[in-house]
């Protein structure tokens, strides 16, 4: 019974066949290439927009880094130290971000990907499937990193007057560097999948994030620095600042090897730079070999575990009791529903849509997680402004920072509206048989989504702007001015996202991130960014207060007229056009 049967396989043909990994790379490259061509064929405008946006970012980032590095380098005696520390800090933080990015992308790619399920029953060794997914995840997680730092490295090279080979060597350093977080990220992803289920992972992630936040708050707690200290004890202040960033110089950090290697090469110390290159190479070879040759079985065990798991926490009686309690309460009215029931002027069907959207937002960790991270970081930054209030005595800086904060808050919101509000209509389109056929109607559905998204995001943006004004000790009239401005911008950005989402629907896709990456989503992001830049400039130019904080600025009326017109064009117009289109929509 156990003896293998004879089969009609043709062993002779095997030698000529390419390896499974080669086949997978080839077929996926063909797919990627056709996707690129499809973008160009679908819309020249989209291609032009993407190229313009990428080129614009590269040019602007280069200009800012170049000027910033020149400025920092102009401090006699301190410039070189500051630039060196900034370089080490930047790569240390990027290492952390790359690790996180690799972990998330590897997890999705290895365990939530339909290609993986397709490949597993085929005669491909688990190692080969893991290798391909590792390569794919590393590329997906790292390309943005390379794109982001390229202008900075070009500016660094130019300010340091480096020879041409610096750029080639840096590329080599970066190529080695990105492998380490890729290996660590994939290893972590496999082990998380193997030992933690979704709920246990969420609990662990929350605990780790809280721990990190607490550690950061204790470690990086800002000390107030007086003007007197700044004038008389510059070196002491600087030393305090540098001591807080000393962790970036920990010699066992891969970012240290990269920073030191790049810096030594720029300074012409090629021997020392080569040493760091070899340190990187040896680690990449060691851990890379382990990952590519020893992870296959662990990967398969994790895949099987992910598909098999009920809940890892089911073994604890308290958890089972809690689940049973939740099950019993499943049919009762939740607190959210009870709270919404108070809003009697809102019709019942609209309330049902609002309740459904709020529940989906709450149950989708990605949505509230990203919102929390983006606005949480901004909130922490605003709160920290109080430590600089003694340096921010100059009315000019207060003026400037208040408008920069307005722009930062709006940019955060634009990221979220494009990512989460824009795809709403397309996703709803899949369920047109429910909502589209109901007496509610698509028009009211779109308006309900606009109202809900605007109200929820306004609570965040207005709250943050009031916090920013409070930290900057602005008077109530200036606080009101900026709050009204962010309110208009919030409604505009939501109107744009909802409107374009309905004008450019994609009913084929289930994945919101793929819906966003189409023409409408890219267009929405670019228009949002341009609108924010134009609005902040208009509002600052037409401010009723001068740059020195005194009343009497000129141009309030024309600038507000421009701002309102711009907001109407960017927010109201797409929403109106979408409502008109929806009325002619054929299901």
């Amino acid at each position, binding site marked *: 019974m156990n003896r293998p049967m004879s089969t009609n396989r043709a062993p002779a*043909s095997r030698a000529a066949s390419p390896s499974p990994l080669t086949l997978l790379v080839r077929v996926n490259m063909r797919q990627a290439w056709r996707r690129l061509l499809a973008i160009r064929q679908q819309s020249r405008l989209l291609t032009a927009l993407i190229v313009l946006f990428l080129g614009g970012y590269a040019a602007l980032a280069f200009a800012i880094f170049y000027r910033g590095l020149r400025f920092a380098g102009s401090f006699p005696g301190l410039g070189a130290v500051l630039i060196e520390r900034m370089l080490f800090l930047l790569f240390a933080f990027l290492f952390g971000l790359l690790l996180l990015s690799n972990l998330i992308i590897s997890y999705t790619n290895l365990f939530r990907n339909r290609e993986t*399920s397709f490949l597993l029953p085929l005669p491909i060794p688990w190692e080969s499937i893991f290798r391909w997914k590792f390569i794919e995840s590393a590329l997906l997680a790292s390309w943005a990193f390379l794109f982001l730092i390229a202008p900075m490295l070009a500016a660094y090279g130019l300010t340091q007057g480096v020879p041409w080979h610096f750029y080639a060597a840096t590329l080599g350093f970066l190529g080695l560097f990105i492998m380490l977080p890729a290996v660590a990220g994939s290893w972590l992803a496999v082990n998380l999948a193997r030992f933690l289920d979704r709920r246990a992972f969420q609990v662990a992630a929350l605990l780790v994030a809280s721990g990190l936040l607490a550690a950061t708050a204790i470690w990086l707690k800002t000390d107030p620095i007086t003007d007197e200290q700044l004038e008389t004890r510059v070196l002491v202040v600087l030393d305090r600042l540098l001591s807080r960033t000393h962790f970036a110089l920990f010699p066992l950090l891969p970012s240290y090897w990269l920073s030191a290697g790049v810096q030594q090469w720029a300074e012409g110390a090629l021997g020392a730079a080569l040493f760091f290159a070899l340190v990187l190479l040896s680690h990449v070879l060691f851990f890379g070999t382990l990952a590519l040759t020893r992870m296959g079985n662990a990967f398969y065990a994790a895949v099987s575990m992910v598909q098999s798991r009920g809940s890892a926490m089911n073994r604890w009686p308290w958890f089972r009791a809690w689940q049973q309690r939740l099950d019993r309460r499943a049919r009762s009215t939740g607190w959210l529903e009870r709270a919404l029931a108070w809003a009697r002027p809102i019709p019942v069907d609209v309330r049902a849509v609002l309740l459904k959207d709020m529940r989906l937002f709450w149950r989708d960790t990605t949505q509230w997680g990203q919102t929390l991270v983006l606005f949480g970081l901004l909130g922490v930054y605003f709160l920290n402004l109080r430590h600089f209030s003694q340096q921010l005595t100059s009315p000019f800086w207060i003026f400037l920072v208040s408008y920069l904060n307005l722009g930062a808050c709006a940019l955060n919101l634009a990221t979220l509206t494009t990512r989460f509000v824009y795809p709403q209509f397309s996703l709803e389109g899949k369920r047109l048989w429910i909502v589209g056929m109901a007496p509610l109607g698509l028009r009211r559905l779109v308006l309900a989504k606009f109202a809900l998204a605007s109200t929820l995001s306004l609570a965040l943006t207005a709250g943050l702007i009031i916090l920013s004004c409070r930290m900057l000790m602005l008077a109530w009239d200036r606080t009101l001015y900026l709050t009204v401005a962010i309110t208009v911008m919030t409604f505009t950005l939501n109107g744009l996202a909802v409107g374009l989402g309905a004008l450019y629907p994609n009913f084929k896709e289930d994945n919101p991130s793929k819906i966003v990456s189409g023409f409408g989503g890219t267009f929405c992001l670019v228009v949002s960014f341009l609108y924010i830049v134009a609005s902040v400039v208009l509002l600052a130019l037409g401010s009723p207060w001068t740059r020195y904080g005194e009343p009497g600025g000129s141009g309030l009326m024309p600038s507000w007229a421009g701002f309102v017109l711009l907001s109407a064009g960017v927010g109201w117009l797409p929403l109106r056009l979408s409502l008109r289109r929806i009325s002619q929509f054929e299901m």
Partner: protein
Amino acid sequence: MIELIHLVKRFGDLVAVNAVDLVVPRGQFFALLGPNAAGKTTTVKILAGLMKPTSGAARIAGYDVQEQPLEARRRIAYVPDFPFLYDKLTPWEFIRFTGQLFQMSEERIASGARELVARFNLEPYLAKPIEALSHGTRQRIVIVSALLHAPDVVVLDEPMVGLDPHHARVLKDILKERALAGMTVFVSTHQLSVAEEMADRIGIMHEGRLIALGTRDELRRQSGTSGALEQTFLTLTRQEANLREEPPSSSAAPAAQSE
């Protein structure tokens, strides 16, 4: 051939597959039936190597799916209920890619695909991107790719979904022909008509256990019914559910006998 040896799969507290023993000999057309959440898809996934059993073993053509995975997977073809396809490839590129993964020579791929492509009427679509094709056409491409390497065992999960009556007939004919030539066919389905018309032997799963196994006539006798398979299926699953509700002392569920 397929062997399931005392197969158990647990998801936490839930026993999805409970001590299933089954042998499907070479050249047999076997249909696995069962109500929702009976454990059919879990059994199929274990057979396809997508998940490990908690205990027991699954063998394909004598090779243990877990211990000798590559040998087992060279001999099996798996058609899932929601198959994955590379959307930007053309059907021909996809078929060729699958053949290459099975290390088939270009000549073998071309000759193997020729007949299948013709019978499933895929010729007009071979150069079009897969993303532009209908659900039924995509399903036909998956079936052609799966059968291309002439597997010893083919495992299909709801294979008729999306196929029009003509192509459903073509698939039934091909499966029957291949079964006669020695290929073992294992179909998991809710469509009782497929089992009734095609299967040499039928297994019925309920709450993770294989509660009945045999030919249509054997199942009819076991259930004490006559007529369509639907009646047999409903009676057997209802009997099993009733037995479960009775006190343990009186429960004596008939154990399914393997071949």
